[in-house]
């Protein structure tokens, strides 16, 4: 299933890119455009050939890890994608950590203390987490920090290798923004899934044999409740990738999302094609990994 979907995606992206109005050659040449210069540039960029040839040229390169060169700068796209991916991935991992630290304990607590005061607070917080758009939260957060503490998030990016502390300072605010919106839905799913499991007979049996409450909750209830939660977390990776597009823009982080937006604004096809294909591939692969993870969590699930 993986290969046909990826092929379908690559064709879809390629065709979409062909439909984009405005062409890059006149963008590069501007008023100096002459028919000869135009023909030369079209040949140089490879866009003088028929569509099918263009597609095969592109996709055969992609398979070999060559995503082409940027129309504007001439720089290879793939190394740039990899470098930027490492930044976006760091952001995504930090966001997941933030989300899980908030969501799992609170979700479990909320299920255990159903309809209590804590439960209500957690549910309202979760609903807010789901409903407050990342860019609105980010903007309000920056405003709040500036007005109250006179703090401004750093604009210049520093990599993790150069200066881990500085890097963390840059990443922490966007990670909190992305993480809190993820936390909302994970919290809700954890709560409802735990409630479902806690009702079942085997939990009574575990309690009846005298297992400590901690073991009952963590080893028996939470593990059995985790299938829908894992599904949700897998699905959220996609939302997370979309989220990074906006959040990277706000916090000036040179990740994949920012690369893609620049590509769209500058009509730089290889950048857009490459980045979208790369993101979609990661997304599909993560969903596959989630499926495999099921069999680990619940050995009753097998795939033929």
């Amino acid at each position, binding site marked *: 299933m993986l290969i046909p979907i990826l092929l379908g995606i690559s064709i879809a*992206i390629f065709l979409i890119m062909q*439909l984009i109005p405005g062409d890059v050659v006149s963008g590069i040449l501007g008023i100096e455009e002459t028919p000869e210069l135009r023909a030369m540039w079209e040949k140089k960029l490879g866009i003088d050939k028929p569509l099918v040839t263009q597609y095969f040229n592109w996709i055969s390169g992609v398979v070999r890890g060559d995503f082409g060169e940027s129309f504007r700068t001439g720089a290879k796209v793939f190394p740039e994608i990899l470098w930027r991916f490492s930044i976006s991935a760091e952001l995504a991992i930090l966001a997941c950590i933030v989300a899980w630290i908030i969501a799992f304990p609170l979700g479990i607590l909320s299920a255990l203390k159903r309809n209590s005061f804590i439960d209500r607070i957690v549910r309202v917080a979760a609903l807010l987490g789901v409903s407050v758009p990342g860019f609105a939260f980010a903007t309000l957060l920056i405003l709040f920090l500036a007005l109250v503490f006179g703090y401004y998030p750093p604009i210049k990016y520093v990599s993790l290798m150069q200066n881990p502390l500085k890097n963390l300072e840059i990443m922490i605010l966007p990670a909190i923004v992305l993480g809190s919106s993820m936390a909302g839905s994970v919290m809700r799913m954890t709560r409802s899934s735990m409630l479902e499991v806690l009702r079942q007979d085997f939990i009574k049996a575990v309690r009846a044999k005298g297992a400590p409450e901690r073991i009952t909750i963590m080893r028996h209830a939470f593990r059995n409740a985790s299938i829908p939660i894992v599904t949700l977390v897998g699905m959220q990776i996609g*939302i997370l990738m979309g989220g990074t597009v906006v959040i990277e823009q706000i916090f000036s982080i040179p990740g994949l999302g920012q690369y893609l937006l620049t590509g769209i604004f500058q009509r730089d096809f290889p950048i857009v094609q490459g980045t979208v294909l790369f993101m979609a591939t990661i997304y599909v692969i993560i969903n596959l990994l989630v499926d495999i993870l099921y069999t680990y969590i619940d050995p009753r699930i097998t795939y033929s």
Partner: protein
Amino acid sequence: MSDKKTYVDRRLPTGDSLLKQLWQDPLGRAGFLGILFILLLALFAPIIARYDVAQINSKARLAAPSGTYWFGTDNFGRDIFSRIVYGAQVSLLVGVVSVSIAAGIGYLFGLAAGFFEGKVESTIMMLMDIIFAFPSILLALLIVAVLGTSIVNTMIAIGIVNIPVFARTVRASVKAVKGTDYIANARSVGLKNSVILFRHITPNSLAPFTVQATLALSSAILTEATMSFLGLGIQPPNPSWGSMLSEARTYMEMAPWMVVFPALFIIFTILSFNILGDALRDALDPKLKL
């Protein structure tokens, strides 16, 4: 518990009882009132708005909220309150039209996939999987990059992105009712496919469909705001909450009201839709209570 396949009634409760049920649930009531408020703002925008949304007034640049300008003014001296009110119109319009596009097409796809199975189903679901394989905001941005930025293209982009969720929901419920006795009965008395599909299967898939539509509305409004925030949605001088918020970032410290009001309205609207969506799901499908 018997092993027999039990029939789950997925028809919508009649309008009256559903509304009553929603009203009795405090959260449902809150969501309903919230949406009603935004709807009224949008409908009566020409009466409520106090100034022309595009009117530039260089003498009143970045004015703080006051009796004259309730929510203050922006960097062009435009009245933020009036722009928020008209922004409600834009948000709801984009939301409703794009969800209608998604629901209409998704519904037909889902119905066809669930009912005919075989090649039809695998082709449709393959197409849906491809759309689904793109993070939604990414695909919407790509489509707008192709079609160009305008309000209609924003609607089309958000519509296309939301087709798969509807197709999947409808397909699942069609499959659920298809195996039941009453559909077999309908077949045995010789009813045509089209009659079975639209008279008998359709009403039975409406409940999950309605919940999905409410949630899709909130996500469509969110996507529009995000796209406009990135400069690839509604274009100035048309007021959109997303683009207002984006413009406000430059003047954040001088004029915090430029940030606060659009942000609050976006949050309020999406919150209202999500609360109503939750309440609707509880009312229609008590098993799924969160």
